[in-house]
């Protein structure tokens, strides 16, 4: 039917697969333009889907017309739509950056791998059953590992291998959990499961929840399972780090959140103390990640540890779901603000490192003055990460503190505030250097930088700050969560 032919749900998954193949065929290093055009179309689809959901509520689509449990249902509600828009928007900006960044030909198979990455991520956000989520999760993991290893250097191979092992453990545990769920309930469709699981809950389901949660927490690099993230994000090329930190880790977080709110909501209601575990680990992540970022020698390591800390924030929302809609708003806003800000920061760092030919934090002193637009982008992104107004990070922090006060969990507010202050220490470590008068050792050789590299960083950083003022569509979407 003509209507179904242009269903944005379907094209969001099909398009990336198409351009992944199309960019693979011409050989290594080609295909940037195809990818960018396609990402524009995907962004259009995501926006259209968002408008649709705000107007009419959550949507489903049955692949091939086959109903569950045999068929693969696709489902999109407010939360999924928000993540989809974030993914396509950040992806488009990073793709524009990567086109200029990889002009020297070092991209090899960046474009096909990114295509599969997006296919997997879009599929993950749109999947309606646990097993399809496993498949897309695995696709995302493998594509991400491929991207990390793409450069061809030995240290990248080591980081990629460590990432791969962690990813496989995570999804292996998840799959076993899916098997247990199927054994206990006879279906893996999310909407059926939500109604099916009620007290008393069989032990198999508790085990399933534990395994799936553990696997997803490993994939989201929650302390202390974060060990694979800093080498992977720190050693990869800048556009890859941006995609990984901004989007890939958010995918597994989204899945964890989906499980928490959907099928396993009954288990959570039976044992409310469960929520403390991710929150405590999240607090430790905030403190540890910030501490390591403050001490990092290399710029990209600093930013990678910052990701570890910021991911900890996301898990602080779990004990405060009692405070109403605030917790979900805080979590989603933080994920979106962090996604845009971290991507901006990584690609700004990529430009700075390439021009300065030096990847240490100290080395930023000379080059920062040559690239004012990039530095400003870095600073703006930093403002959002520190949670200073008027950014999206600030609004997320406000909502989190409000939710914490509503549920009486004051310690979460304290962690949020402390995290913000620690973030300002490591952000200003870098920004300080921009104001330092360079002593004669640092040459100020002007070097032309493609405009796309500087302005995509600024665009993303501005988006992160703009979220603090223009977040109302996000809140409208969140009213449409759940089918």
């Amino acid at each position, binding site marked *: 039917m003509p209507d179904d032919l242009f269903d944005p749900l379907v094209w969001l998954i099909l398009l990336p697969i198409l351009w992944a193949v199309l960019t693979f065929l011409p050989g290594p290093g080609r295909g940037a333009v195809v990818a960018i055009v396609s990402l524009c179309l995907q962004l259009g689809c995501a926006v259209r889907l968002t408008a649709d959901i705000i107007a009419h509520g959550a949507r489903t689509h049955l692949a091939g017309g086959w109903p569950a449990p045999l068929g693969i249902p696709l489902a999109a509600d407010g939360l999924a739509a928000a993540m989809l828009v974030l993914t396509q928007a950040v992806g488009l900006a990073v793709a524009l950056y990567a086109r200029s960044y990889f002009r020297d030909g070092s991209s090899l198979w960046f474009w096909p791998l990114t295509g599969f990455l997006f296919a997997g991520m879009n599929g993950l956000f749109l999947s309606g059953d646990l097993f399809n989520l496993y498949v897309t999760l695995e696709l995302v993991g493998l594509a991400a590992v491929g991207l990390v290893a793409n450069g061809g250097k030995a240290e990248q191979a080591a980081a990629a291998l460590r990432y791969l092992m962690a990813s496989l453990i995570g999804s292996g545990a998840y799959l076993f959990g899916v098997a247990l769920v199927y054994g206990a309930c006879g279906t893996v469709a999310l909407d059926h499961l939500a109604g099916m699981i009620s007290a008393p809950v069989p032990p198999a389901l508790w085990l399933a929840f534990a395994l799936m949660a553990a696997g997803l927490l490993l994939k989201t690099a929650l302390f202390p399972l974060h060990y694979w993230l800093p080498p992977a994000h720190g050693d990869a090329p800048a556009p890859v780090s941006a995609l990984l930190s901004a989007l890939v880790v958010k995918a597994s977080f989204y899945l964890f959140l989906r499980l928490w709110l959907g099928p396993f909501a009954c288990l959570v209601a039976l044992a409310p103390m469960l929520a403390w575990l991710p929150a405590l680990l999240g607090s430790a992540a905030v403190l540890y990640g910030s501490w390591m970022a403050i001490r990092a020698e290399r710029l990209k390591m600093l930013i990678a540890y910052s990701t570890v800390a910021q991911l900890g924030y996301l898990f602080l929302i779990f004990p405060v779901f009692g405070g109403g809609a605030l917790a979900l708003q805080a979590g989603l806003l933080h994920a979106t603000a962090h996604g845009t800000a971290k991507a901006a920061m990584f690609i700004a760092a990529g430009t700075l490192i390439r021009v300065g030919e030096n990847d240490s934090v100290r080395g930023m002193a000379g080059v920062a003055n040559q690239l004012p637009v990039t530095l400003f982008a870095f600073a703006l992104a930093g403002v959002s990460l520190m949670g200073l107004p008027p950014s999206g990070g600030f*609004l997320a922090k406000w909502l989190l503190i409000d939710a914490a006060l509503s549920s009486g969990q004051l310690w979460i507010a304290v962690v949020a505030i402390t995290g913000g202050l620690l973030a300002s220490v490591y952000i200003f470590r870098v920004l300080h250097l921009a104001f*330092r008068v360079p002593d004669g050792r640092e040459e100020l050789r002007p070097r032309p930088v493609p405009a796309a590299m500087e302005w995509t960083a600024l665009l993303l950083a501005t988006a992160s700050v703009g979220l603090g003022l223009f977040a109302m569509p996000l809140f409208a979407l969140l009213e449409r969560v759940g089918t």
Partner: protein
Amino acid sequence: MTVNELLPLAVIASSLIPGLIIFTLPERQVAVRTTLNLAGAVTKILLTGLLLIGVVSGESFAVRYTVAPGLELVFKADALALLFVSLSATLWLFTTLYAIGYLEQAPHRSRFFGFFSLCVTATMGIAMAGNLFTFFIFYELLTLTTFPLIVHRGNAKALRGGTVYLGYTLGGGAVLLVGIVWLHHLAGQTDFVQGGMTALLDSAPRLHLQAIFLLLIAGVGVKAALVPLHGWLPQAMVAPAPVSALLHAVAVVKAGAFGVVRIVYEIYGIESARNLDLLAPLAMVAGVTILWGSGRALFQDDLKKRLAFSTVSQVSYIVLGVALFGMAGTVGGLAHLVHQGVMKITLFFCAGNYAESLGIHKVSEMNGGGRRMPLTSLAFAIGALGMMGAPMTAGAVSKAWLNQGAMDAGMDWAVWVLTGSSLLNAAYFLPILYRLWLRPAPAEWPHERIPARGWRETDWLLLLPPLATAGTVLLASLFADAAISPLSLARLIGRMEYLEPSP
């Protein structure tokens, strides 16, 4: 969008847009940059004038914007806002002129003037904020935009000063945020309402309200340099003189004091604040700060540090005025907000002149400066006399009201504090005047950069602003009863803040 809604936004835009454009200008385009700066400053003054006329005739200027469910960005140009706005707008013009003269040939001027404009934008936002949420946004923006100004010189000392500044202000901001969110959580909104949020205050538990007050005051107290949160202010003296002038007279410190005013009058309300036993501790903290600041100033040889501690002391006059229950105290505090601004900026302009023309940074080097730079020293003398509360200066006017307010509130110890402070002020300013006029000049100045030529003692751009502001110090006192004087505006505001007719 009506004109009334547009005007507050236009005031903010009048420095935001030139600031953003200036960032993109190359260093050598001095003329374009100067034009933008001055055009912005003049536009802002004109718009402020329009707003003042409107407010005095009873119009309201407010605009709201929903950021999140239950959270609104509100700009409201009421009489209290305009007190601060008019001070900032006028002094911004003078400081811009001064900065243009001071930073001639200095590096990174585009960056400097860009952040300079953004700093004033943030100040305008603080002044016109209609609720604590909006206030906080611009409060933190002020921190972010003043940091590059403080570390402008880029040497190790400047960076260290900047780090200390950030440590204090970001910490204060964190505490303030907790207080604001807590208040919002209890009340559902944080709007500034004349007379305070009476509905909330009747229903919420006393301890909670007192705790929130402590958090809020501690948060704004960092910028207002209340003891013991004042440590950043002397360290921030590493900034170039125009920045010190701006920080101490116009932007940062005043923003903190303004925050205290808003919180006491329009969040809690003066009557409720008294009922919650909040005014007495606040007055005591202010008293301690006044004496401590003046005391420390006595022992500083560095001129700017002496002025810094003097600021610590003088800004607490405003806080003291706020904490004194009674119309006179209120009026005294609010008037002093403006008066202290003009007086302090005069002093900092002059300090900058001494440093720039003669290389003088210490009080001990100022011998004979009066004869070499008579006009600058005259302006300095007027400012110093104002600080001491000498007759015919603005300082005398506000001190008189504050003394009256102390007696009205039954806090006679405050009169002793004020008197003590005046004596200390005399003790650290009179020796400077003595050195300037009555001691012989040294054979050679430390670093004479701008040689005297006939009548000319220094660059006219550096001379005009201090003379103008010194003149304002005198005018504010001589014409204190005129309709548009700071004192009259303070009295207008004071009348509106009290729920019942005050004693």
